[in-house]
């Protein structure tokens, strides 16, 4: 098993993700790309700023990926990369890549990682609108998340 967990301030390159995931023993790669949309809840979005606590975020990514390996197979290879800073519409904010022998565990692990990432990672999103306004989006409280993955790890699939 291997896990790559990164917070980056430069654009995420597809070739890097592909290279990281490829290996002759993997028959399946599943790559989720999250992108900045031009619209949210009826407002025209021009750009998004991601504020990130890098050390804690990378630690959280690793914990989540380890949980995925525990649940769906220790031979999985998981890559999690999240952008920090200001992103234009269409730019990639997050990548979750899973390589595995077969596709079933790739789909399950990929979904697990992205869902957990969204509710547990110390990352915040500020939308910049066409009208010049900006807003920090509401999110998931981390209260109850003390001792890291306690909440998620106790809830079995």
């Amino acid at each position, binding site marked *: 098993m291997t896990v790559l967990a990164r917070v980056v301030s430069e654009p995420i390159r597809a070739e890097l993700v592909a290279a990281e995931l490829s290996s002759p023993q993997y028959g399946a790669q599943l790559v989720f790309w999250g992108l900045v949309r031009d619209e949210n809840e009826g407002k025209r979005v021009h750009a998004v700023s991601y504020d990130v*606590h890098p050390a804690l975020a990378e630690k959280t990514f690793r914990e989540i990926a380890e949980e995925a390996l525990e649940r769906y197979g220790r031979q999985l290879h998981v890559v999690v990369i999240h952008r920090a800073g200001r992103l234009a519409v269409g730019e990639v904010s997050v990548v979750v890549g899973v390589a595995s022998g077969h596709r079933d565990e790739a789909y399950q692990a990929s979904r697990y990682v992205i869902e957990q990432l*969204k509710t547990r990672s110390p990352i*915040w999103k500020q939308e910049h609108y066409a009208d010049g306004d900006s807003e920090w989006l509401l999110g998931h*409280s981390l209260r109850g998340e003390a*001792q890291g993955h306690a909440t998620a790890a106790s809830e079995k699939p």
Partner: protein
Amino acid sequence: MLRIDVRLFGAFRKYSNGSEVTFEVPHGTTVSAVRKHLGDALRRGAAAFADQPLLDASVLADDNEILDDAQLLGCGVDRISLAILPPVCGG
């Protein structure tokens, strides 16, 4: 006294200098009490804080983990660095 630097993230960046806030508490203060001190410090700030529900929904963390409310801080040191983490929405 224990000097605490709290790094601000997300919606907290609207307050203080947008980066961090510093205040002092007695040694052995709980995380939960530090949260109250943080509120007071933010309310004293240049851009004054008036969002107690946000603070209530937030957690304090060091560079390694989220801190439990009952934990005591500052054993053997004079200065610590924390972060206040409001509700998250990565992805």
